[in-house]
């Protein structure tokens, strides 16, 4: 029998109170009349079939009633409703958007099958744990390993695509034919590369990305089988990859097979490949590392200069700094969620106090506690749902913006879709807050034995809620401080980085890239003719003071590292690395790099003249400290070179990193077809004329010199230098936006609390004024309340902020986590916010008319 009573618990309590007894009685009577096990079983089955659906329907009936009531109640308080929904939406939206991006970039697996078994393989040299291997290493490692199903390779392959007469520079990737099968991906149309397409002499084939296919080939399916021209060679399109496929990152728009020539395997220092391998099912990463250690040792016996091998999971591609930034972003959004929830709670408490009388009356009229609680829960849940829905819309709008923060070198498609798990989490937190703080008042009131709330002028019992609200405001101020300090420190770091001298004078310099196809420009004299003609004509343009070509511009290409050998110095390769570039004369003048000793290259540094070099000051200091470096000899690119000049150091690797010493070589002093990657392709032009005005003439000059050479990457040097700090700027803007939202919400919180306090103390204030208190005293009273609270919150916040700053020290570019100006500015902002938030309630208190206040209360 207890069983049936237990079953009735499925019904709402109010229903049970009304009808439970009768239902039980009916069941008892039927039970008494039942004979036999089968009949008994049928009776219970019918009971179940009766109670369960009807209980659901009764709950539904009550919900509908409550919803009608809720919508009326919320409609009568539009200000409160709007504020509560917006606050909830901010919390949910910001957190969801931030986490979606963080999750895709840091946590979610890559969009390949079984990605945990994909591994990248690097050479490791002392001081550089990840060095790209050469084709010879690839061949040897692939042959000698036993832990992987297969090992594939890929390399950058930017090519000139000629389509409809227009030459376009397109970024792509050269891959071994086995690479896509290793990744276990399928094409959208057509097929992948066959095993015989990546060998020397094979006919050219190409896979198009979805984007390239849509934009340049009209998205037509008949593109498969078509022939296109890349770098003036014919390639047959064999397939199109799906829309969400990116490899190795979202910039690669086509894939061609790597067709190694037998000569590629001779030079073990031609390091440019990226290797990707798939672990065998029965193997593991530690086992593979051990295996490759053995391989490395065996190779070391044949090639004494060989170094170790490093294995990294493919998914660990996010640099530590970016990882930290994304984590900080997620932390910031959590702070906003917390503030939003505390604000929401505060709003609900205030509202509940306003409704004390209403709830007391309803209780007096017989409304059960459960019914009241339920109805309030419905109201809070409605607010939470409304806020959540708006939050989703906010998240959808904001997520694409935040996706810009994910490093470009990740193989994920452009936009992070909204993460449903996080949406659920944020919504849950908001709902719990909303429901919790919405329901508490009902529990308090209906547990109130002598119906306090019904008394006229009842103001008692506000102590508890006031303390709670004060605590909430305290929390909001503290959290705002954390966000403000973090943003402030990042601003300081940004300024610091922006102050760093890149070593060049970036103003008034236009840059662009003309990648010469090596099939026609492999011979040095052919290149020289092109450069000489183009540079001569450009220098003759009005307003142009200098122009030059270089292998790569600083900050554009950060690698290009070579070993040098200097007599009298140990030959340890890790100690003797330089950043090497081939340049034409006038390079230093064009980029504004001062020459401190000796001379620039000129006509005397011809092809077969004595091999010359210009070195950076750090190079000279390192190898010939305190001595004249001019005339010294050292070995680079397997050739002895004489130092003819010394230039100031340039921050090749960027404003925040240490660069290797630089070595510059004359563009003509290199063997035919050697190191094609370093053939100068970046053109820099210093001119007083605006770039937009200069560009058409430059284009025309290049087109006349060779119409098939496309122009790409047109940028001013200023833009390049500014791009160094652009991701910091973006991060800062977003964090700053969070901090701003936080401080605004905290200000609203303080305002709300003080307004409430003043309302409750109107009588007291009136008495004080009547007894002779000056208005200034009243002002001090109210403001003092607010400032004391803010000060306490500030104190807590400062302590927490310090620890947060220590956690993100790596992002601060050397700024101290305890940076005094930042903390000082934060304190000032919080003080200002407090004063503004307190202003209206304080003014109201000051303008209290003691007579009317006391009359209203009598």
């Amino acid at each position: 029998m207890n069983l049936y009573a237990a079953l009735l618990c499925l019904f709402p309590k109010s229903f049970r109170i009304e009808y439970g007894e009768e239902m039980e009685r009916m069941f008892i009577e039927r039970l008494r009349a039942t004979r036999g096990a089968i009949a008994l079983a049928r009776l219970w089955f019918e009971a179940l079939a009766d109670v369960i659906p009807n209980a659901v329907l009764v709950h539904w009936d009550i919900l509908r009633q409550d919803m009608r009531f809720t919508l009326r109640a919320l409609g009568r308080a539009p200000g409160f409703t709007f504020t509560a929904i917006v606050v909830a939406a901010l919390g949910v939206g910001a957190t969801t958007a931030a986490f979606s991006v963080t999750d895709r970039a840091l946590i979610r697996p890559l969009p390949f099958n079984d990605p945990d078994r994909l591994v990248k393989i690097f050479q490791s040299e002392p001081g550089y744990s990840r060095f790209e291997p050469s084709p010879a290493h690839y061949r040897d490692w692939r042959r000698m390993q036993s832990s992987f199903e297969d090992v594939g390779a890929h390399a950058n392959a930017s090519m000139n695509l000629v389509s409809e007469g227009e030459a376009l520079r397109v970024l792509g990737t050269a891959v071994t034919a086995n690479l896509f099968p290793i990744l276990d991906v399928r094409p959208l149309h057509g097929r992948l590369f066959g095993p015989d397409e990546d060998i020397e002499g094979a006919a050219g084939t190409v896979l198009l990305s979805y984007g390239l296919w849509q934009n340049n080939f009209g998205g037509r399916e008949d593109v498969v089988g078509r022939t296109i021209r890349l770098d003036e060679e014919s390639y047959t399109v064999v397939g199109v990859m799906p829309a969400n496929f990116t490899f190795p990152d979202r910039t690669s728009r086509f894939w061609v097979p790597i067709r190694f020539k037998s000569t590629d395997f001779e030079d073990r220092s031609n390091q440019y490949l990226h290797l990707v391998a798939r672990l065998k099912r029965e193997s593991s990463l530690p086992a593979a590392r051990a295996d490759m250690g053995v391989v490395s040792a065996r190779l070391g016996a044949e090639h004494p200069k060989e170094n170790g091998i490093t294995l990294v999971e493919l998914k660990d591609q996010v640099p530590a700094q970016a990882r930290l930034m994304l984590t900080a972003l997620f932390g910031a959004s959590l702070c906003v969620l917390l503030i939003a929830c505390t604000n929401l709670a505060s709003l609900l408490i205030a509202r509940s106090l306003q409704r004390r009388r209403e709830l007391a009356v309803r209780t007096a009229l017989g409304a059960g506690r459960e019914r009241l609680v339920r109805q309030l829960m419905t109201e809070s849940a409605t607010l939470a749902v409304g806020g959540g829905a708006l939050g989703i819309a906010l998240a959808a709008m904001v997520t694409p913006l935040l996706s810009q923060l994910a490093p470009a070198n990740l193989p994920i498609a452009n936009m992070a879709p909204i993460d449903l798990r996080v949406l659920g989490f944020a919504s849950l937190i908001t709902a719990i807050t909303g429901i919790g703080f919405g329901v508490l008042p009902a529990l308090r009131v209906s547990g109130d034995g002598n119906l306090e709330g019904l008394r006229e002028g009842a103001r008692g019992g506000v102590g508890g809620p006031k303390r709670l609200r004060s605590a909430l405001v305290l929390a909001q101020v503290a959290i705002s401080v954390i966000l403000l300090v973090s943003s402030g420190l990042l601003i300081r770091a940004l300024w610091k980085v922006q102050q760093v001298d890149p070593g060049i004078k970036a103003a008034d310099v236009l840059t662009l890239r003309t990648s010469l196809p090596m099939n026609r420009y492999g011979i040095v004299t052919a290149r020289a003719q092109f450069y000489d003609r183009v540079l001569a004509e450009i220098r003759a343009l009005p307003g142009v003071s200098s122009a030059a070509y270089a292998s790569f511009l600083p900050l554009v290409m950060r690698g290009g590292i070579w070993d040098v050998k200097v007599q009298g110095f140990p030959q340890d390769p890790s100690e003797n690395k330089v950043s090497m570039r081939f340049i034409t004369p006038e390079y230093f003048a064009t980029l504004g790099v001062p020459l401190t000793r000796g001379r620039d290259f000129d006509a005397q540094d011809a092809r077969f003249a004595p091999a010359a070099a210009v070195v950076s000051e750090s190079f000279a200091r390192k190898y010939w400290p305190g001595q004249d470096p001019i005339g010294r000899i050292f070995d680079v690119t397997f050739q002895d070179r004489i130092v003819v000049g010394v230039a100031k150091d340039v921050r090749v690797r960027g404003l925040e990193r240490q660069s290797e010493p630089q070595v510059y070589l004359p563009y003509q002093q290199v063997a035919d077809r050697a190191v094609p990657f370093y053939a100068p392709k970046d053109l820099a032009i210093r001119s007083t004329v605006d770039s937009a005005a200069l560009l058409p003439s430059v284009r025309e000059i290049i087109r006349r010199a060779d119409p098939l050479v496309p122009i790409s990457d047109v940028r001013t040097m200023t833009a390049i230098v500014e791009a160094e700090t652009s991701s910091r700027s973006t991060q800062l803007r977003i964090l700053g936006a969070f901090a701003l939202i936080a401080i605004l919400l905290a200000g609203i919180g303080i305002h709300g609390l003080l307004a409430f306090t003043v309302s409750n103390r109107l009588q007291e204030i009136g008495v004080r004024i009547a007894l002779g208190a000056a208005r200034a005293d009243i002002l001090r009273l109210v403001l003092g309340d607010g400032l004391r609270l803010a000060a306490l919150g500030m104190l807590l916040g400062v302590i927490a902020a310090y620890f947060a700053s220590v956690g993100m020290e790596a992002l601060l570019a050397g700024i101290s986590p305890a940076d005094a100006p930042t903390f000082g500015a934060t304190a000032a902002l919080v003080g200002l916010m407090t004063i503004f938030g307190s202003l209206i309630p304080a003014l109201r208190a000051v303008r209290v008319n003691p007579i009317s206040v006391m009359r209203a209360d009598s």
Partner: protein
Amino acid sequence: MTNEILDPAPFLPLPLATFHILLAVAEESRHGYAIIQDVEVRTGGALRLSAGTLYRSIQRMLEDGLIEEMRERPAPELDDERRRYYRITRLGSAVTRAEARRLTELVGFARAAGLAPETT
């Protein structure tokens, strides 16, 4: 009470259980169990209201004002103090009549189409 507007339209069509419960309390007030018995007898056993369905319907009908709980009790020898008695309201009567009219109309259409049995 006399000024209330008795508009049955929002309640039509009536759910079957509601209709039968209204019929059961139309002539005399009954408690829950008695309603179940009355409906069973009237329909010849075709409709057996379960307790859950009965009381859910009663709750809704009370809220909608189709029935009301009796304040006066029947004669002591017939009364079970623990039981609650319900009777039809004026609105309930109006709604029942409207529903009966609606059903009659439907049967009339069926007859005209030759698909309903003629009354014997």
